[in-house]
């Protein structure tokens, strides 16, 4: 059997991971290491930073320097690492609650600064670790333990948010579209600036069971049937878009990267601020 070379990026003695049977996080974590391998990032110069929640346990399984921060704070920590040592490649793993609720401010400001981070959001549309509370990305009318009658909170579109806030690269994929997801992340890694990739992952335990879709394979088939490639989405009549969502690259715009901008500040200061 051919060697699965990406396996070297896992801390073998930490596997199996803690995620529930059928959880899509494992698929997204593998997509990240495969993207790292595709891009040939030097392992000892690549840092994985995560927040708190199911998604953020990923850092512990990945054989790099890894940082499991506090809830919502992965982006500030990652910003500090990148600014302190711009030669490091910094990848952030976060969840929908971590990134868009408690870490929402850090998220938009990371994008605004356009600092060179690759931020991968594992969107399972629920707080899984705490047992299934509604997140800012829980779809309207779906059930959660804190939305027993269905959520009336309008969800964020994290991709629109990242783009509006100034990210250089914005994309979405799903756990069904594994190769596509890997490609989306790999392109994000190549981007010199704030790259944001939303990966839609299934949570059969906390979300699926509450919403009549307890089987993880069924959830993935739902992704297959409802995700629409960006180009097709753009041509799709509005009335057909209900329940569907676009995937692919939504935004590419190479703006000035923050550590590069700051290196000019250093030059200016050292020349006496003229």
């Amino acid at each position, binding site marked *: 059997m051919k060697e699965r070379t990406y396996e070297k990026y896992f801390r073998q003695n930490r596997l199996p991971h803690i995620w529930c049977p059928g959880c899509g996080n494992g698929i997204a974590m593998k997509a990240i290491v495969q993207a790292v391998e595709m891009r040939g990032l030097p392992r*000892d110069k690549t840092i994985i930073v995560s927040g708190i929640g199911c998604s953020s346990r990923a850092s512990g399984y990945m054989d790099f320097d*890894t*940082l499991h921060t506090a809830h919502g*704070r992965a982006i500030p920590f990652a*910003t500090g690492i990148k600014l*302190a040592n711009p030669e490091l490649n910094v990848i952030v793993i976060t969840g929908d609650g971590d990134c868009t609720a408690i870490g929402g401010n850090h998220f*938009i400001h990371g994008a605004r600064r356009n600092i060179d981070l690759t931020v991968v959001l594992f969107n399972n549309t629920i707080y899984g670790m705490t047992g299934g509370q509604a997140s800012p990305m829980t779809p309207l009318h779906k059930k959660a333990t804190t939305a027993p009658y269905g959520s009336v909170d309008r969800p964020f579109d994290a991709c629109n948010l990242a783009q509006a806030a100034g990210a250089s690269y914005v994309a979405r994929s799903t756990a069904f579209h594994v190769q596509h997801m890997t490609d989306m992340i790999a392109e994000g890694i190549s981007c010199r600036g704030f790259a944001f990739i939303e990966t839609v992952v299934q949570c059969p335990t906390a979300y699926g069971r509450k919403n009549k879709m307890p089987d993880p394979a069924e959830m993935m088939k739902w992704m297959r049937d409802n995700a629409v490639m960006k180009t097709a989405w753009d041509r799709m009549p509005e009335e057909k878009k209900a329940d569907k969502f676009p995937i692919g690259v939504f935004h590419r715009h190479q703006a000035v990267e923050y550590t590069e901008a700051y290196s000019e500040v250093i030059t200016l200061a050292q020349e006496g601020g003229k």
Partner: protein
Amino acid sequence: MTDMKLMQGNEACAAGAVAAGVRFFGGYPITPSTEIAETMAKILPSVGGCFVQMEDEIGGMGVVLGASLAGKKVLTATSGPGFSLKQELIGYAACAEIPVVIVNVQRVGPSTGQPTSPAQGDVMQARWGTHGDHPMIALSPWTVRETFDAAVMAVNYAERFRTPVILLMDEIVGHLRENVQLPAAENIDIYPRRCPSKTRLQGYEPYAPEADLVPNPADFGTGYRIHVTGLVHDYTGFPSGSPAVTEEFIDRLHKKILLAQDEITHYDEFFMDDAEYAVVSYGGVARTAYEAVRQARAKGIKAGMIRLMTIWPFADKVIRRNAESLKGILVPELNYGQLKYEVERAAGGKCPVKLLAKYNTEIFVPGEILEGIEALKGGRL
């Protein structure tokens, strides 16, 4: 020594931090600490360092912890409301053992309180502001020159013990301008961050303690591929749910500071040789207290003063030793009474300990503290 110059406390804080090797500052504007950020924004890039203004106080704390893990000596600065927000990640730094100095230039609280008016209301928050059991080092300078020294010391302690250190200033000292002569660079002791003593192949464990109970987690990007977490962890750095690991971990966090407690507890004693009454004071208030004690002496009262620079860990020994021979201790504080209770605990009932509290935005004048000393002597407190 360098030339004499007129300097503000907040500027001296920034200068001391840079002299101690700080090359990264992240923070959020808040009065009365803002001059620290402004000074760092100007100085740091000129020495190849980095200043970043974050979106909020928590971000300011997170960004410096990230930079510290990547190998930089780091500083952040704030005041009361921001200090409250930073508590979350101060606990993270204690747990993950990340060197960091947090300056809190205290102002009147609670909440937004009385912005820019002086206070000492965050003494207990400095000790217990973050959740859970953790040790804390807090230093409170009383002059502009000592603010420089305290900043150097705070950075050194943060690096040496791999723990958050609070530079607990107050608005009096932060905005005070004094003529100072700073030490020449070669006369400043700097604690260099330790490097791992083993390689990965030699079985390096990032959180295995050295003889001083401080571990040596490698800087990110140096090839050790370590894991850092705010979960309780074992020597490998990975989370552990074990009661034995948890107990040893929390013990070690405390003991690494306790082992060095005498060495890091700094204080001055003035006129204490024959003193019958003592004023225990710290920060900007100690300046007034010193004058009050001199005036008391001029009136024939055998008054002395213990001036605490190290607030945490608390200077139990000096208080205890003096309490044996004192008839009373007065603790003037710009708060409703905080450190007074620590003094009382340390005095262990050997002499009465009385509070002189002020919390109306105004600083003490010497006469008030002198009256306090006289009242203490006369048994009227």
